[in-house]
């Protein structure tokens, strides 16, 4: 039993090393929080590690005046729509893939598996050309379509590996009782799949919320800018006002942080679980 828990020195060493990494993670965040509560003047004159010398919330007012609210709204819309699209579409596809395998269905699944291998960053140039030709350039809709498309391979794969494990007898019993494929899907598959839907919602949501390259290439107006892009616009506007930029960065993680606090266990299981499946 002792060997299972490791030696005493081993435990102390690992605790010290883990604490070292803890400091590396926390220190920049602490610096950022503190800097966001400075004014432009006190930022330049005070020690960035010591919370003294007049803290103020003026930077937060500055970033909202600069349009951060708009970026936030765009990000919320984009993320919510992408989550709804990818989760429902991939569950429907997974049900079909595990239930009735025609040649076309099998071929589709293989194509989507290969999609796992294509890094979206690599094909950003033709994606831009396509969106431009479709007259979707500089719209939120362009981001919804492309980011959802990029999330499909992982989503379908994860859903298939979940739906596959739903006992066939349950489905068979419902069909014998006069259920249709649709009632089976709605009354059995959908409710049973809630946990895996939540997992995918978190995983895809995080990727969409934080994506930078697609908004950078596919949009340009401030009115459709999402948060990560908006932050760099903010920096362009206030390159010398570090507290304002830090306040913007903090506000952009705040919604995720609140959600994370509420459902910490679920988030952590999701992130590791999607890939570990």
């Amino acid at each position, binding site marked *: 039993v002792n060997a299972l828990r490791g030696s005493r020195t081993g435990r102390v060493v690992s605790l010290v090393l883990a604490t070292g990494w803890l400091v590396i993670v926390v220190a920049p965040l602490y610096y950022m929080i503190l800097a966001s509560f400075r004014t432009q003047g006190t930022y330049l004159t005070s020690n960035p590690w010591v919370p003294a010398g007049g803290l103020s919330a003026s930077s937060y007012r500055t970033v909202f005046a600069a349009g951060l609210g708009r970026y936030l709204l765009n990000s919320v819309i984009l993320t919510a729509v992408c989550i709804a699209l990818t989760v429902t579409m991939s569950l429907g*596809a997974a049900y079909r893939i595990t239930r009735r395998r025609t040649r076309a269905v*099998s071929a589709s699944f293989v194509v989507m598996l290969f999609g796992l291998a294509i890094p979206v960053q690599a094909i950003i140039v033709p994606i831009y050309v*396509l969106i431009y030709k479709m007259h979707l350039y500089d719209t939120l809709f362009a981001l919804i379509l492309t980011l959802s498309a990029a999330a*499909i391979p992982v989503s379908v794969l994860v859903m298939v590996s979940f739906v596959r494990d739903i006992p066939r007898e349950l489905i068979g019993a419902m069909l014998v009782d006069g259920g249709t494929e649709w009632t089976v899907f709605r009354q059995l598959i959908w409710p049973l799949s809630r946990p895996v839907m939540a997992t995918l919602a978190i995983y895809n949501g995080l990727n969409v919320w934080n994506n930078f390259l697609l908004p950078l290439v596919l949009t340009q107006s401030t009115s459709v800018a999402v948060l990560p892009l908006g932050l760099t616009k903010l920096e362009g506007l206030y390159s010398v006002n570090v507290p304002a930029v830090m306040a913007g960065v903090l506000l952009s993680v705040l919604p995720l942080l609140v959600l994370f606090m509420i459902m910490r266990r679920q988030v*952590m299981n999701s992130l590791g679980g999607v890939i570990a499946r």
Partner: protein
Amino acid sequence: MIGVGPPMLLFCLFIVVPMIAAVALSFVKWNGLGTPVWAGGSNWAQFFRDPVARTSVAVTAKIVGLSYVVQTPIALALGMFTAGRQRHKTVYATIFVLPLLMSTAGIALMWESLLDPNFGALTALSKSWHAAFLNQNWLGDPSLTLYVVVAIIAWQFIPFHTLLYAVGRRQVPAVLYEAAVLDGASPAQLFWRVTLPQLRYTIVTSGILMIVGSLTYFDIIYIMTDGGPGYTTRVLSLDMYNAAFQQDQYGYASVLAVILSVIGIAVAVGLVRFTGFASMASQQEGAA
């Protein structure tokens, strides 16, 4: 809603079609506005002649290699630590996840001001601790910047791989450890002889994700260094972005797109081979 149609349509239109278009565009000269002109292999010849491209390949390879070497041991160690169920480990694990919640843009802007040589937090530390080595031009010194970028990428992605390793470690059956302990194995032997072999799929998965991820890595470099100073952090994905959106050379940009995709796919096919996604697909065939 039931069916592979809608997701297939979306996926084909916005991933498969661009993929094919990239190959086609790599053989034309096109500025994005006029009519594309057939160019044969001249875009490809340009890639193999261009000294900037050669530098970018070297820098990209360096970032991929260094990222792997830096991130893997740290993530593995932290993953083993956080796999435990003790209360303090849960707290550590929760805090370790925080960088994952941040966007790359946010991370880049945070580190940019933190590393500022005049007002940055490290410069302040060097003053109060009298530690001159902390006072560097982190993002302007050609001999340092690449390593600073690698470190920031590690700060961003180690949390994710830590989670992967923690999940992998928890899935190792306890009975394996009990048996090994009965045979008199030491903690070190438990790690090398039981844990590590059991984690082989996690190691491969995490490694491939790291390699493909850093191969196409763009955001932090674009925001923080734009490839500089000089060409020291100029990577292929930045070359591609500049070729298309700064110089309007869509043909040449597509050459880079094809090269990045092919390397990405080659690496990921390795993943499919090693981790048994392929066997999962064939089990699917069998079940049908």
